[in-house]
């Protein structure tokens, strides 16, 4: 390990690394820059990179014209709501699978995983019709239900892999110490699994925030989260790049920051523990 790395080699990789990073990040950077331009400057050719009149005008207009914060709140309610309900259901289930496995546990876990692999179009029609009949179309509740369901397998799996790392003897010790099952979960398991639960929470908020099949198909004006709201900019008359950029920047910034914090857990969560 402790070998000197030549400075030249390091500088070469620094140049290559930053160049590659810049190219990959460019679309995001460009969006952020454009969001501070006027509409006229946004489509200027040749493009203005840094030397333009910085303005927050687009941010004001996004809010005043389309009630941006309503959609933001929709995204918050839907992603946080579905994640919390998911955790509430998944923690006991993951406890059972990790600490009281039976012969069928593995089959059940695999089956849960397989529901995640069900392509959404396979159930789009009935879900759409049922939601229409039950008045759940374009409601936050409807989207919370759907997103809870599609992320539940990931939540259960992630928690399971974290719970597996907690020695069963500690839970048995709490049982010997007179803790009931509920107390065992509340006082011993949950505090010990806090890091795992937190990363599960984080990853699922990210996934739910960015989900763009069900949110596009099941929401319209009132419950539309940011994914669907931004999709409305795709209409030809919506070609206001500065405003699109402002709306996009607001939509991706919080999740980007959360995502940067959870990059390690992301690997584990998205591979169902197959890669740690």
């Amino acid at each position, binding site marked *: *390990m402790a070998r000197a790395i030549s400075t030249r080699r*390091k500088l070469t*990789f*620094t140049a290559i*690394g*930053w160049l590659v990073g*810049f190219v*990959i*990040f460019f*679309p*995001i950077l460009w*969006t952020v820059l454009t969001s501070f331009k006027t509409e006229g400057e946004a489509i200027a*050719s*040749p*493009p203005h990179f840094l030397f333009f009149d910085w303005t927050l005008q687009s941010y004001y207009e996004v809010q005043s014209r389309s009630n941006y914060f309503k959609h933001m709140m929709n995204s918050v309610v839907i992603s946080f709501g579905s994640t919390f309900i998911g955790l509430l*259901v998944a923690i*006991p*289930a993951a*406890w059972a699978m990790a*600490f*009281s496995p*039976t012969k069928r546990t593995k089959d*059940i*876990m695999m089956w849960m*995983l*397989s*529901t995640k*692999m*069900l*392509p*959404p*179009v*396979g159930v*789009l*029609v*009935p879900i759409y019709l049922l939601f229409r009949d039950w008045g759940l179309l374009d409601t936050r509740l409807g989207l919370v239900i759907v997103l*809870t*369901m599609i992320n539940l*397998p990931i939540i259960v799996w992630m928690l399971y892999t974290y719970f597996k790392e907690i020695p069963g003897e500690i839970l*048995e010790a709490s049982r010997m110490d007179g803790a009931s*099952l509920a107390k065992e979960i509340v006082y011993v398991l949950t505090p010990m699994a806090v890091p795992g639960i937190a990363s599960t929470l984080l990853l699922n908020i*990210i996934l739910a925030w*960015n989900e763009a099949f069900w949110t596009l198909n099941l929401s319209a004006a009132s419950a539309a989260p940011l*994914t669907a709201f*931004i*999709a409305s900019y*795709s209409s030809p008359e919506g070609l206001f*790049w500065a405003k699109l*950029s402002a709306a*996009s920047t607001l939509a*991706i910034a919080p*999740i*980007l920051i959360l*995502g*940067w914090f959870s*990059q390690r857990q*992301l690997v584990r969560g998205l*591979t169902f523990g*197959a*890669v740690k």
Partner: protein
Amino acid sequence: MATLQTRSAARLMMTPAVLMLFVWMIVPLAMTLYFSLLRYNLLMPGMEEWAGTLNYRYFLTDPAFGAALLNTLLLVGGVLLITLVGGTLLALLLDQPFFGQGIVRLLVIAPFFVMPTVSALVWKNMLMHPVYGIFAWIARLFGLQPVDWLSSLPLFSVTMIVAWQWLPFATLILLTALQSLDEEQKEAAEMDGAGPVSRFIHIVLPHLARAMTVVVLIETIFLLSVFAEILVTTNGGPGTESTNITYLVYAQALLQFDVGGASAGGIVAVILANIVAIFLIRLIGKNLEA
């Protein structure tokens, strides 16, 4: 760890999750299957009648299905190719020590957190626009004719956008796998006289094989269902040039209101996904025992 009491408590605690997912999966799937056997259009309510396999025959013989199937395979295959090769190279790059490594790493993984509709629109407008887009500007800089990406190369353009989103995923997983490679193993190979290239081929690549399989299988599951990127960029067009199976079923259901036909398409999509899922489940299941 197992007494009757804990076991029955465990069963009780698993019930809500299992029940919820069961209802979520089985009930709509059964309904889809049922609808697929009906002549059922939302524009003609009350006219539902038994249609047998008619919907399937229509769906499967529709030229749009052949096109969509091919597009789906090209899209999935193209994105896999780009993300695997690019992801391996990026992982090797990020594994090298250099100044600002941590920051570059954050820059590289950022696209994964951008919601699909945003990345699709940003690429469609600000990068790929034939007049004002950055690509057009670069083309003119070199004295070339700008390309109207989404009209003339729709599927390729969508592939690019999706690949950009999934490149971080492949990179991150391959990088994680790379960093779990035992340093001593590499040193041992070096002592045995292996150069950098043969070290990569004989030591690193086999070690990455498992992670690559995981990347392929998981990306495939998600890529079979690419939807938002197509909806906001090309609407599947021109014609059916960028329509994949998912988009085709969506169009049939929510644009043509043909519940029967869309359901048949949905079942076909489920069957296609299952073929991939079987492999993925085997792989992860094996891992569960280890």
